[in-house]
């Protein structure tokens, strides 16, 4: 199963020809010399490190073990400087377009009037937050922190698989992966000039400071809003708050008075200017969104709309990373930037279009079908790897509500050498770089989080579905 796409897939280390690519020569030599026992030892040391720092995630719907470690693979994924330079330019362009798109759909709606994107796709989308219509967000920025999922299919071609414009997670893994590699393999860093990633918190802090409301003091008070210790990404929230040097707050720590947000401190209420929120729109203010939310802050939207606090990301960014909207991204990039998209989109069939849906229904065994509102690899059919029953289930779903799905050809995601039970073997990977947008411009630390599908032949890299992570190196020279 899946063998054939392993054979055609581009390998990060050996390309398609079998010769080791230049960026990997030193790593290849080291791997060949390294005794397998040493690799196994280092791997268990890495696991010990992650356990000790308590970097875990919760798997929803899995009662057995609510806290798990994401498997870490000790073999890094390497990108050359020119590869990264091109990727970074594409990411900047894409995130610029995402922000312009958001400003437009909540403002003049030019892209809808121009027919770039169907009106109903925006207006009927539950993520299109009416509260945001005609509201000027501070400094005009909606998506301050974006995570763009990238896959590679050959030496020169990178596709965007998905945009994450709400509350993308995983950046703590990017940083901790580097940390553990530096501890375990100092010799590799002596032979490779790896671009650092540990300035991410500084860049994030600068981004958050830059978007403080104009009414705030020169030294804006920033906090990170978490749903609390039972959230799957709580480790990341406390990690980031710690690195940023800002308070980690829960909804009940904040109060709103006369449209100003305060946090409850032992010295009385202290004004809050910028909230890096890791709570979804629906839960952020029970007076405006879901009234059963106990995680949010009553009155927060009022304060936001009065211009007294900045939310990062803004409310309503979900309309930009919807999978159906995704299929229009090339046109969106062209419309707003006037440039050709640097990063490609995976060709996408919009099942809402009858012709496309007919094709999809005829080719379910060859396509990847995704639920428009699904995330984390749930609600997804990987045709070539699916059994008959799974395909028939999706056929029924597609016939019942075609507008809820898109389909894409199975991509031969690139593979990267990975240390698995049988030794070092190729496994499919993707890449999630994190792009920050502030009043101070766009920044992006080199690399990002590489996710790896640990099962042989598997294309699903999500941690909730048996994926692991790797350190990602961008070589400076």
């Amino acid at each position, binding site marked *: 199963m899946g063998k054939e796409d392993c054979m055609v897939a581009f390998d990060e280390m050996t390309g398609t020809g079998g010769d080791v690519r230049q960026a990997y020569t030193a790593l290849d030599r080291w791997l060949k010399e390294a005794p397998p026992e040493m690799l196994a030892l280092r791997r268990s040391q890495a696991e010990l490190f992650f356990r000790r720092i308590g970097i875990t995630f919760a798997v929803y719907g899995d009662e057995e073990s609510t806290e798990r470690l994401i498997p870490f693979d000790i073999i890094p994924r390497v990108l050359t400087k020119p590869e990264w330079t091109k990727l970074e330019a594409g990411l900047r362009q894409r995130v610029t377009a995402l922000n312009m798109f958001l400003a437009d759909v909540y403002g003049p709606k030019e892209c809808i009037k121009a027919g770039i994107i169907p009106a109903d796709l925006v*207006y009927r989308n539950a993520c299109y937050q*009416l509260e945001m219509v005609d509201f000027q967000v501070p400094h005009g920025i909606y998506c301050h922190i974006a995570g763009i999922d990238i896959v590679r299919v050959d030496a020169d071609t990178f596709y965007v698989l998905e945009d994450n414009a709400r509350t993308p997670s995983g950046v703590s893994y990017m940083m901790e992966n580097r940390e553990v590699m530096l501890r375990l393999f100092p010799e590799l860093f002596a032979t490779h000039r790896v671009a650092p990633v540990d300035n991410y918190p500084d860049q994030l802090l600068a981004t958050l400071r830059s978007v403080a409301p104009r009414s705030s003091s020169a030294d804006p008070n920033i906090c990170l809003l978490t749903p609390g210790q039972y959230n799957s990404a709580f480790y990341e929230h406390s990690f980031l708050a710690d690195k940023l040097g800002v308070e980690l707050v829960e909804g009940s720590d904040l109060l*709103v008075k*006369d449209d100003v947000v305060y946090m409850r401190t032992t010295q009385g209420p202290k004004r809050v200017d910028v909230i890096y929120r890791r709570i979804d729109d629906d839960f952020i203010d029970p*007076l*405006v969104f879901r009234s059963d939310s106990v995680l949010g802050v009553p*009155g927060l939207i*009022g304060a936001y709309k009065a211009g007294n606090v900045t939310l990062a990301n803004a409310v309503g960014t979900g309309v930009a990373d919807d999978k159906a909207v995704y299929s229009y991204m090339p046109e969106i990039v062209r419309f707003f930037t006037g440039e050709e998209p640097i990063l490609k989109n995976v060709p996408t069939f919009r099942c809402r279009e009858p012709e496309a849906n007919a094709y999809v229904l005829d080719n379910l065994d060859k396509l990847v079908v995704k639920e428009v509102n699904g995330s984390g690899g749930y609600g997804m059919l990987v045709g070539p790897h699916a059994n008959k029953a799974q395909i028939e289930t999706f056929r029924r779903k597609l016939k019942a509500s075609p507008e809820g799905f898109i389909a894409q050809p199975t991509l031969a995601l690139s593979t990267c050498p990975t240390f698995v039970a049988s030794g070092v073997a190729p496994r499919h990977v993707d890449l999630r770089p994190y792009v920050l947008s502030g009043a101070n411009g766009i920044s992006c630390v080199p690399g990002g989080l590489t996710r790896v599908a640990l099962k042989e032949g598997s294309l699903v890299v999500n941690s909730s579905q048996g994926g692991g992570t790797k350190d990602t190196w961008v070589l400076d020279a």
Partner: protein
Amino acid sequence: MRIRISHAISYVYAEPARHITQILRLTPRDHDGQHVMSWRIEPTIDGRLRATQDPFGNIVHTFSADGPIAEMAIQVEGLIETTDLAGIVRGITERVPVEVFRRDTLLTMPDAALAGFAEEATQSAETPLAKMHALMDALHEKIACIETGQRTGLGAAAAFAAGEGIPQDIAHIFMACARHLERPARYVSGYVAQSDALTHANGAHAWAEIHLDGYGWIGFDAANGLCPIDTHVRVAAGLDFADAAPIRGARKGGDGEALAVRVSARDAGGRAANQ
């Protein structure tokens, strides 16, 4: 008709509240069918009351007060002059694209039974308007209306399955059906004055509005089986009850909340008598 409205929502807390914030959608606006002659909102305790507008154009008051608050009430008094326009709603500044109102929401998500009912009820009607009337008649026939206060709203599908609903449920069922038939639909909360024409007129009320090409928005009160007439005072509209609820609140402390609502909407007498 001149309608005098008096609405009091009172709260008693077993454990005094330290702080409360409330969002009040209790203030009607003018449109072609209604004119607000006077309107007053008065909380019985000191606090801050600030008026804004929500995305739907509803007038929203935010009320906040610090405790300890053992009890409080919001009192609303007003006088409205209405005209019967056969349910047609005009003269409102629409702020949200009509397409938005085709969204399914938590409370208006149709299930198979609802969808089947909507299709069957409307299949013999010719025009979109006739279809909506057919739907209203069928729904009025099928689902018994019980008084608000007998229970809380269930959402469209559950109320339909239960076979009876408070006016809020019936509005949601109607909206769910209309949206299933690809009509934009919205929820309206308001008041109705007692009249011989109505079977359900207990002061506060809720109904649906449907957008039809050539007409704009038209009200459908399936609980009463008619389009709103001059007995209906329109206060707030939204995607469903959650957007148009008269009060949404949050509080610190204040365990053991007891809520009491008193509402009346009455014909205040003819124009001549007041001139």
